[in-house]
Every structure is written in C-alpha cells, then in structure tokens.
C-alpha cells in the first residue's frame, strides 16, 4: 500500500522533499556563507553585456521590463484560465484541452519571463543581491517551477475524470497562490 503510493507519486514526493531541503537550507546557519559565496557571480553578472547594456541604456532596460510585465500577464492569464477550469469555472470549455493548451502558453511565457528577468537582474545584480525579497522571489519561483512540472503536470496528465475533483481543486488553488506570490514578490522588488 505505502510502496504503491510512493511509486505513484514519486515525482511529487521528490519535489516536496527537495523543497523541504531547500527551505531548511535557507533558514540554516550555512546560508550566510553560501550567500557570500555567490557574491562574485552577481559581481560578474554586472560586467556581462546584459549588465552593461541594462545599466547604460535606461530605455532598453524599461522595454525589457515591459516585456517582463507582458510575460507575467500571459503567464497569469494561462494560470487563471487553466486553474479556473480545474476549479469548476468556465463551464462548457473542455477541461482536457484548456489545461493542455494553457500549459504550452505557460511554458512559453515562463521562458519569456526568465529571459527578460535574467537581463534585468544583470543590470542591477549587486542591488538585488542585498535584497531579501529577491531571494524570496527566487524561492517562490523555484517552488512554482517544481510544483508545475513535477506535481501539477503529472497529475493533470492523467485521465481527469478519474482524478478526485477535490485534488484538482487543491492543485488549482495552490497553483494560483504560488504564482500570485511569485508575481507579488517580483512587484515588491520594484519598490524595495
């Protein structure tokens, strides 16, 4: 019984375990030395072409920021449409198709967000290095990516009629909350 449960949900369990290890590490003593160890990476980021361009051309930085916002909008739209459908909203739309098509859009918009996010981070690398909220955002993003690809996706890839509606609702609510947290911490960086 326990063995079959572990076998069926191995990706979910591995992701959960990885996240627990990550959070334990972040709140442990060793985080200070690790934080200092990654400083040279952030110093190097500012010297890259992205870093120099981001600092030199304010208009380019602002356009990339706008691209990041558009990516956020599309990612949020796909999350709301897909998770809204799992929650039982938007009745009449085929759940299987909505969830699958939204996942493709989600993946593309996540790619856009990461690409524009890396550019922006290079431009203000040292500044964000010292911001606790930047690390909160990275933690939330890591949780979001793990959740989507290793917990949510394997479950919604099954025959949705055979998955408990309560599990689907729990997945949808968790997904909305996680991605809202990622977006809110990102916004928080803006006014820190």
């Amino acid at each position, binding site marked *: 019984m326990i063995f079959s449960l572990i076998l069926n949900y191995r990706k979910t369990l591995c992701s959960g375990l990885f996240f627990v290890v990550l959070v334990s590490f972040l709140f442990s003593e060793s985080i200070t030395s690790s934080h200092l160890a990654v400083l040279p990476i952030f110093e190097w980021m500012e010297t890259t072409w992205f870093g120099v361009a981001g600092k030199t051309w*304010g*208009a380019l930085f*602002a*356009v990339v*920021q*706008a691209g990041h*916002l*558009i990516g*956020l*909008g*599309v*990612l*949020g*739209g*796909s*999350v*709301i*449409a897909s998770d*809204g459908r799992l929650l039982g*909203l*938007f*009745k*009449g*739309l*085929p759940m299987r*198709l*909505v969830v699958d*098509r*939204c996942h*493709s*859009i989600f993946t593309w918009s996540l790619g856009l967000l990461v690409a524009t996010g890396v550019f922006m981070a290079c431009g203000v690398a040292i500044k964000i290095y010292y911001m606790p909220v930047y690390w909160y955002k990275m933690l939330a993003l890591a949780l979001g990516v793990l959740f989507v690809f290793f917990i949510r996706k394997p479950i919604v890839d099954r025959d949705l009629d055979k998955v408990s509606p309560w599990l689907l609702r729990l997945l949808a609510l968790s997904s909305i909350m996680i*991605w*809202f947290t990622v*977006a*809110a911490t990102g*916004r*928080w960086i803006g*006014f820190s």
Partner: protein
Amino acid sequence: MNQLIYNAAVWLDNTEWSTRIHESYYLYNWIESTHVLTLMLSLGILFLIDMRMLGWAFADISANKLATRLNTPMLLGFVVMFVTGILLVYAVPVRSAQSVWFRIKIGLLIICAINALLFHRKMTASIGSWDFEPRAPKALRVGALISLITWSVIVICGRFIAYDWFDCNYPQSDLIRGIAGCIDGQTQF
C-alpha cells in the same frame, strides 16, 4: 486646452486625498501593485482570446465559448485596472497630465476601446460560421493583432511613465513640449 488640463491637474493636486495617496508609501505602492498585478487577469486573458482568434492557441476549442467564458474575469480585471489607474493619476496629477508617455497611453487606450467595440460587433455577427475553425475571419484577426500590438505598446508606455526623460521641468525640444503640453511659467510640477 493644455492650460485647462494643467489647471484641472493643479486643482486635483491640491485636494486632500491626492496628497494622502501620494505621500503614503504603503497606499501608493498597494495601488500601483494592484494595477500591475491585475495585468494577469485583464491583459493575460485578453491575449489568450486574441491568440485564439489568430490561430496561435486553443485552435481546437470553440472561439465563441472561449471568448464568452473568459470575458467576465477579463472585464473584472480591466475594471480594477481602470480604477487603480485613475487613483495613480489622481495621486500625481500634474506630472501625469504633462507626461508624453501618459498622453500616448491615453490615445492608445482610446484606439483599444474602439477596436474592442468593432471586434465585439464583428464577432457577434459572424460567430456561427467559423466557431470551430482554427483561425478567425480576416477582419477579426486584424482586430486581434491590433489589440495585441496596442496593448503591448500601452504596457511599454506605462513603464516609461516612471522615467523622467521627457519631464517638463527639464529642457525639452519644442516637439516634446508640444506633445507633453508643457505650460510656460508654470509654478507646479
């Protein structure tokens, strides 16, 4: 006209709540954050519908059903964006009224509103004939493309408002002063 806009902005700026919002670190940031985060509800869903019309996504889902079902959260998002947007302008009225980017943004918002009305009318008139086609008829595709482009430029303009490159309190060319509506000898910015 610019003098009238300036006088109205100065009047708004002198009201108690404009000062309160502007000077409250948390209130202003909460309003601004709500404005930005609502992009996920308004623009995100609008782009999904536009992509369906263009055949870039959801090609195997009924266009009419998708647009109808997603319409309510999208409109809710736009209402929140509109209200928070007005509050943001109300908090900083003089600078906003004389911002090149804000003026371009308002112009584009008017274009978007007209485009949305025309789009809705054409969609209602033609829906039965192509509902399950991968792509909408040409007129609707053009409308969706206009929507995608103009809203993207609106986001860029919105981001540019935060920068002071073309503010009236710096020396500007006649073209910029004309578009921004800078007033000679103005006392407030």
